[in-house]
């Protein structure tokens, strides 16, 4: 493979039959072929049809991205693969739970900043908060960065979910 092409970041949606081992197949494909996974989310989206939607954010040269899509598409339980980065004008969101511990001035500052990020407080003690924050991965990165000097102790992130704008289904 010619390696001097630039690296791109793509968000890919994969609609799969929700059968045993399907996630292992997708993850195994990435690890076995040496592709990158920046984030991966999965959940059943149609209980009647037993389909799940996997959203994977990956990086690679254009040729590698094309390979990743073709490789995903040929997995037997895959219904559809969509590259939201090129095929659609998509919206992307991620959610994070962010725990910040501290008292006094730092605690006040954390609460003030969370407001600017429209983060919600979902748990509180005299010495800690758990914030729920939603947005693009960059926004969450920024929020976590700001919380770090204010007593950040724990982070749990969902990874990116994404969907195309407009009326069409995937």
């Amino acid at each position, binding site marked *: *493979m*010619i390696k001097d092409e630039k690296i791109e970041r793509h968000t890919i949606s994969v609609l*799969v*039959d929700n059968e*045993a*081992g399907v996630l*292992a*197949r997708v993850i*195994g494909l990435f690890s*076995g072929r040496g592709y990158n996974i920046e984030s991966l989310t999965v959940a059943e989206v149609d209980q009647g049809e037993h389909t799940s939607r996997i959203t994977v954010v990956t990086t690679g040269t254009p*040729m590698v991205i*094309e*390979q990743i899509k*073709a*490789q995903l*598409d*040929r*997995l*037997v*339980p*895959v*219904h559809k693969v969509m590259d939201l980065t090129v095929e659609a004008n998509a919206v992307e969101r991620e959610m994070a739970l962010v725990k910040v511990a501290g008292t006094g001035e730092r605690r006040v500052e954390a609460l003030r900043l969370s407001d600017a990020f429209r983060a919600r407080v979902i748990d509180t003690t005299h010495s800690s908060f758990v914030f729920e924050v939603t947005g693009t991965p960059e926004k969450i990165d920024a929020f976590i960065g700001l919380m770090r000097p204010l007593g950040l102790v724990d982070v749990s992130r969902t990874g990116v979910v994404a969907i195309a704008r407009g009326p069409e289904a995937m």
Partner: protein
Amino acid sequence: MAAQELTGAEIVIKALVDQGVDTIFGYPGGAVLPIYDALFQQNKIRHILVRHEQGAVHAAEGYARSTGKPGVVLVTSGPGATNAVTGLTDALMDSIPIVCLTGQVATHLIGSDAFQEADTVGITRHCTKHNWLVKSAPELARVMHEAFYVATHGRPGPVVIDIPKDVQFQKAEYTVSPHITHRTYRPKVKGDIEKIKEAVDLIANAKKPMFYTGGGVINSGTVASQLLREFVRLTGYPITSTLMGLGAYPASDKQWLGMLGMHGTYEANNAMHDCDVLINIGARFDDRVTGRLDAFSPGSKKIHVDIDASSINKNVHVDVGIIGDCAHVLEDMLRIWKSKARRPDKAALADWWKQIDLWRERKSLAYKTNDEVIKPQQAIQRLFEMTRGRETYITTEVGQHQMWAAQHFHFDEPNRWMTSGGLGTMGYGMPAAIGAQIAHPDALVVDIAGEASILMNMQELSTAVQFMLPIKIFILNNEYMGMVRQWQQLLHEGRYSHSYSDSLPDFVKLAEAYGATGIRAEKPSELDAALKKMIETPGPVMFDCRVDQLENCYPMIPSGAAHNEMILGDDTDGASVSEEGKMLV
């Protein structure tokens, strides 16, 4: 009327029969006893008892590749399944349709480290096209038929169905028909017609065209070979093929340039390098074929026909990628070519052939014989000449002998040549010969072997004897892992680290110990009579053909080199491998 209830084991057998299966290759064990019991009580399916589960899969591959039908394997849980893994990986790499049934511990024991439990679907996920763990008998018939569908449609490959022992006993109705439409897997066989038109335009306007065909034509079936022949003859263009595609186009034809790639002919590789339009039909730009990628056919427009979208633009960027089945696409190409009354550029083509003929004159496959030692190439050439006109199937092991077989045994028909190309599995040849012989009981089936490779699945000679399969094992015995030795000579200054075949058995006595016939030839003068004896002796024969120990396989494109930088047999002084090339295999 409600369908009759069958046990899981009976469902397995019924589904196999409904799929038209006549033969399965297997080895019993605790976790498949119910299926073996059901096999015992029927007479529609023949079971070939192998001596090692790897052998079962290779035999099924030989059966599949020589017939175009899927090969079927039955093995037990745990060690039975893990022994099958090499064969499954081999079939995956070479796109061979295999349905492998594995026994599993009872469902309630899964995950408890039960006796002979292995996570078979986990282990085989990476070496199958798809696999299933069947948790209840009512799903079994559907999964069986789905498995055959997946193995044989699109790009063929191996599949595994893991069946817990309790499911084999459980009763269920058998209702499913063998013809299914799959929920998600529906590969495209018709190519995009606009792209095909674009391809035909490129082909028609070429000045220095080249057909490069591969295993996909064989996978597609005999119709694809026929259409390929028609199209290539209509154009008058030169054609080469990969190791996996040999036989799709007749080697006796004047437009045939021989195999390309690492051990391909001078004319095929040079034509690949210099052509202006490259027409890839069912080949996958493998690294044995392309050599150094940035120097691969640098000036050509490239057309690629492949049923698997992931093969297109994987290693080499192409100008026109057509996703579809070879036969379907060739049919459309021919139709469009004819309807537009296309004519190749006669003058340009004449010049191109003049150039190709100059390369041909280099006679890159030539070798020198003498009275003292048999040359391995000579042994294969004589085998070829002495079996001409017969229905002959050739399998190989892996190594120099494999490449010499590809170079010096010429195939005019598809499905006559079975070799482990992608994985390069030593030990493939004898079980594959068994599978081919089962499918073609009256044909001559020869495993062209090396003395090292043959020892890897030697136990299968017992299978051949038991089932009275008259396979011929033609060992080119150079007392070396010759291919390894050749690389050590070229890359490691002749330090032959552990590549000498020490303490070899006496192959003649070994054959006899198995109840087969053993033959030996040591001098060129003995070769023909010994070959005649091998061909004419009924039953399995093992022929220990002593050949030149230090012969190298040429031409050779060293790793990391370009097509026009190949080493030829008579100028090996110039042979050198770049530091970068040494990193490659």
